[in-house]
């Protein structure tokens, strides 16, 4: 077990409870990593939460800001962190000191389901750091990794100064979301090179070597002698080499590209590598927010109501769960949406409400009473938690009935009334909008297009416009950060108000110009 900065052993009575909860969870078929629970006081909890769950991370003021907000809102009684769990082997989960027994049990059940999800959902496989040689179980020593990274950054901070390092971390954090979550990623063997895609034969024609004009064939050997022709051939080949675009194919892993090709000092490279590693570590959690929280909520309510609660606790339990599942206007509560989707899957596959026959059935009455008694619900649930991420999950399992039942709607900003309004409850549009919000974690798609733009070593990025503009003021600040890293002018091609636009920053001033 990893050694810890905080001394927070679990007291015996909670340990007993943990064993019981684990037995219930296993009984339902959940399959989780060994899980270590620790008890924290509220300010330790706030501290650890500020660091995103990791007690030891690189130093940065942003964590201090997070802490200020968390502790304020705790002191004023606005919010309280019940639970936190880290995707690690063993998984580490934190309990809040002074919580009631019902709350601790609920958190344990919730956490065990999260850990099951970490272990079994395919998206989290990219956080594996090799295998345990004895058991073959995946190894995820992320607490240690982050602590090491933290130590590296701290050491650099001692060498070059904390202000310098922190300022650079600020820049890197601006670029944090410029990664490609689909890039096969394994930190242990993080080689970006050597990924080959076969595209068939080379279709670019070889250009002809230029030669001087010859009026009479017999003069050929004199006007264009072999030595001259060789020189010419070499020159065209060189030109061709120069004209080759770099990178050859556009690259969505902007952070990785900068890491490989930007002129960075050793300490800058280390800092950037840390930020990128963390971005990839957190990516699966962004991709599965709805699924992950839904799964944990589904199982904590199952375990609590069927096994763990006694009669005196059930009201308290229901009260806590109601708080978790509350919906607010203009927001999707991932806990609520997730758990309802899982429940709908379970019901549909129990009753056989899927497949061609079901889809083709128009008879409302028949649909209502449709029950083939297949009993495949539980099996389908486990399959879903393994094989989907939020985008594919919603795409696959969101049905018109579900949207109607859950009263889902889309909303948008009405220029006319100067306010946010409900737009529609039509299934297709709700689904469309929801998928838009989930795709790439709600982040724009940005690619490295050309790293030698205009043969001046300038960096050109493109934003793939899919209906929404970038926030220009933010984009300009990001360009500033990019220039800091790339050390040459950087531009991004995007669309503003329906017009193709180039945003450029050359280290001195910003330029915004419409492209024709």
């Amino acid at each position, binding site marked *: 077990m990893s050694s810890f900065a905080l001394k927070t052993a679990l007291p015996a009575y909670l340990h007993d409870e943990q064993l019981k909860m684990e037995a219930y969870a296993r009984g339902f078929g959940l399959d989780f990593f060994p899980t270590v629970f620790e008890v924290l006081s509220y300010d330790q909890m706030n501290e650890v939460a500020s660091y995103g769950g990791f007690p030891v991370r690189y130093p940065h003021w942003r964590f*201090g800001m997070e802490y200020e907000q968390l502790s304020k809102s705790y002191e004023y009684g606005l919010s309280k962190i019940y639970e936190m769990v880290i995707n690690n082997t063993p998984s580490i989960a934190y309990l809040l000191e*002074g919580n009631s027994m019902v709350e601790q049990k609920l958190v344990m059940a919730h956490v065990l389901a999260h850990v099951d999800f970490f272990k079994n959902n395919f998206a989290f496989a990219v956080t594996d750091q090799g295998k345990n040689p004895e058991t073959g179980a995946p190894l995820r020593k992320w607490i240690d990794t982050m602590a090491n990274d933290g130590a590296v950054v701290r050491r650099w901070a001692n060498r070059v100064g904390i202000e310098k390092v922190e300022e650079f971390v600020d820049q890197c954090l601006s670029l944090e979301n410029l990664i490609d979550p689909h890039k096969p990623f394994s930190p242990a063997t993080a080689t970006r090179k050597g990924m080959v895609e076969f595209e068939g034969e080379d279709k670019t024609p070889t250009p002809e070597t230029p030669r001087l004009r010859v009026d009479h064939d017999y003069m050929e050997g004199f006007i264009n002698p072999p030595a001259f022709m060789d020189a010419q051939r070499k020159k065209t080949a060189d030109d061709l080499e120069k004209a080759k675009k770099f990178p050859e194919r556009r690259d969505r892993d902007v952070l990785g590209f900068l890491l490989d090709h930007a002129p960075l000092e050793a300490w800058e490279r280390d800092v950037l590598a840390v930020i990128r590693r963390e971005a990839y570590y957190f990516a699966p959690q962004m991709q599965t927010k709805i699924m992950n929280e839904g799964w944990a909520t589904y199982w904590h309510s199952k375990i609590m109501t069927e096994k763990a609660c006694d009669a005196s606790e059930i009201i308290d339990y229901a009260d806590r769960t109601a708080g978790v599942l509350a919906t607010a206007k*203009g927001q999707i509560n991932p806990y609520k949406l997730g758990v309802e989707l899982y429940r709908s899957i379970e019901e549909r596959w129990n009753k056989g409400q899927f497949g061609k026959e079901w889809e083709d059935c128009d008879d409302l009455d028949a649909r209502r009473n449709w029950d083939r008694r297949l009993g495949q619900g539980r099996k389908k649930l486990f399959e879903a938690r393994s094989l989907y991420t939020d985008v594919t999950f919603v795409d696959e399992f969101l049905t018109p009935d579900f949207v109607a039942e859950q009263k889902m*709607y889309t909303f948008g900003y009405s220029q006319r009334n100067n306010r946010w309004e409900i737009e529609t409850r039509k299934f297709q549009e709700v689904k469309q909008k929801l998928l838009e919000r989930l795709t790439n974690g709600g982040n724009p798609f940005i690619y490295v297009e050309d790293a030698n733009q205009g043969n001046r070593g300038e960096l050109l990025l493109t934003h793939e416009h899919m209906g929404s503009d970038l*926030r220009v003021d933010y984009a300009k600040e990001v360009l500033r950060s990019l220039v800091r890293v790339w050390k040459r002018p950087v531009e991004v091609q995007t669309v503003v108000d329906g017009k193709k636009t180039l945003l450029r920053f050359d280290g001195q001033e910003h330029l915004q110009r419409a492209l024709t």
Partner: protein
Amino acid sequence: MTVVALRHRRPYTDRVSLRIDQDHGRFRSIVRGRIRQNLRKYISQGELLGRQGKDVVSIPIPQIDIPRFRYGDKQQGGVGQGDGDSGDPLSGEEQEGEGGKKAGQGEGQHALEVEVTLDELAAILGEELALPNIENKGKAKLVNKKDRYVGIRRVGPNSLRHFKRTFRHALRRQIGMGTYDPKRPIIIPTRDDMRYRSWKTDEEPIANAVILYMMDVSGSMGDEQKEIVRIESFWIDAWLRSQYKGLETRFIIHDAAAREVDRDTFFRTRESGGTMISSAYKLAAQMIENDYPSGEWNIYPFHFSDGDNWSVDDTLACIDILKQKLLPASNMFCYGQVESPYGSGQFIKDLREHLKGDDRVITSEIRDRDAIVGSIREFLGKGR
């Protein structure tokens, strides 16, 4: 069950120094920088006054955000859950553009409230306006001695006997010696068991600086003028408080006659009489004579008015009191003239003319709120 939980305490969970303290400290220093940048705005808008607690001021600063490539909000919209027809507004407070944000995607416009102690605020003010520290004019530093019972001793007078401790020690000794009989639980303390309360003498500095605020509350001083005085006095208070261990403030209002009031009344009162400035100066001189021997006190009379006085004679009387009584006793005398549509603004000219070359007198014209910063610098920039 919960009882067990409450009893369960580990030595390390008490407030130990946390790792976050460093990061938090650097965040605070960034905040400090922000406050300094915006200080002039805070001063001229006066919005900090309403946010003052006992020792802290809560300051709203724009959320410090890390810029990223992200979508503009208005085009985007999102998906929600709940009742309502199409065209219905999302609830009231969502209208500021909060809608559709999931956690972690918050709008950039949220203000962050940070609490800053008055001392820190004064320090920021001092840095920003480059105010010199004030030399305590060699006047005796007064300290109050105060005894507090904080410790335990083995000897002492019987009147200070600590019964519980004594009992405990006696019990312990008797159990240790095997002379304790639970059936006949009689405890007899010996001399070694006796414990007594003991005290420590704390030295508390007592106030040795006083600000005498005087303000003209005649009809010509409007609400805006008073607001300016209020803002200015807030900052003067904050600065001088940070310079002296203890600071007293006294308030005098005057129209044709002067009287002493409390802080609230000072800023609220509106009279409609004429103006006799000398009445206030007389009262101030009286106060100094009675309560603040000038050998021991740093005295700061501040007078704010719109510059109207009843008569030339009265103005001469003022000058006379200043020269004879106020100036010799004070560190400096500050006169702030707030421009009002009714005041003639004559008084400041008279002061300047009659007291030319006396650097104990500082005069400042405060045209509007934006001039407050400059006027604070004029008053406090001499380091007296």
